[in-house]
């Protein structure tokens, strides 16, 4: 008997919540902060763009294409080239996880998107935390 999409999403959430995955996503979020920093104390436009595309994409392939485009730009893509491979590797693992969870492409498509959206939430959360920590430390050292 095939599982319902709701059950599969629950299983996908359990996978995303495992300590090993959380740790990987947190590390990636910190890397985002290390590479992109912030735009005058605001969230980096690159991070916002990634989040926006993940939230609005209809297919995981569109998210991969966005990352590849950023990496493939002639100018201004230095940071993306440094972090992009890692992002693509994360996306590859999310695709693989969706394939493991279901053999049915009708279920895999929304599963991949669900995994990607939850993934980006954790990554951006970690980015924001790293950004806040950095700003607090800076304020502290400015006050000394």
């Amino acid at each position, binding site marked *: 008997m095939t599982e319902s999409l709701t059950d599969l999403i629950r299983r996908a959430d359990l996978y995303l919540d495992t300590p090993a995955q959380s740790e990987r996503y947190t590390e990636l979020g910190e890397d985002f902060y290390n590479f992109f920093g912030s735009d005058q104390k605001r969230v980096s436009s690159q991070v916002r763009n990634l989040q926006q595309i993940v939230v609005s994409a209809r*297919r995981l*392939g569109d998210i*991969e*294409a966005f990352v*590849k*485009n950023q*990496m*493939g*730009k002639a100018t201004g893509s230095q940071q993306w080239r440094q972090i992009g491979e890692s992002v693509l590797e994360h996306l590859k693992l999310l695709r693989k996880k969706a394939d493991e969870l279901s053999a049915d492409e009708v279920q895999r*498509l929304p599963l991949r998107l669900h995994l990607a959206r939850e993934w980006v939430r954790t990554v951006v959360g970690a980015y924001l935390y790293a950004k806040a920590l950095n700003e607090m430390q800076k304020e502290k050292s400015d006050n000394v």
Partner: protein
Amino acid sequence: MFELDIIADTELRTRAIEAAEKLFRKAGSSAIRPKVNGLLQVAVNEPREVASFANKQKERAQSKRDEDEAEFWESVRILCQGGRNAEWFLKKARDEAVPNQLALKPNTPGAKPTKEQEAQKNLKKDREDWEKQWDRDHYPIFFRYFCSHLLYRVSAH
């Protein structure tokens, strides 16, 4: 649209990446970025013109004696129309996706017009419309994935 999304995120994506993997070394022989961006624009705005665009680019590359680039554009044309025993190309994928109700029967030469022939004429028109829509739906997705993977590989190379 859901069906298209599934095909896009599976077969079209895989085929586009495979093709870009085979071709990125040839594409990197000269300032390819603006041309690849041009290719994507044609695929999005005038999908039925991609093959002729690739052909023109091939002729230009040949006139500059850039064999690698000429080979690249010929391969892009083949991705659209087939040739050289290509295993997969967009026209083939489209032909395989034709719904049964749009399958055309061969014409009988010299036969007088009949109701059946009239129906066949209408069917041909429906088939052409369906093919145009298929191209509008699939070419932009295929070439978006192809171009992004190609530029990514060119920049890494």
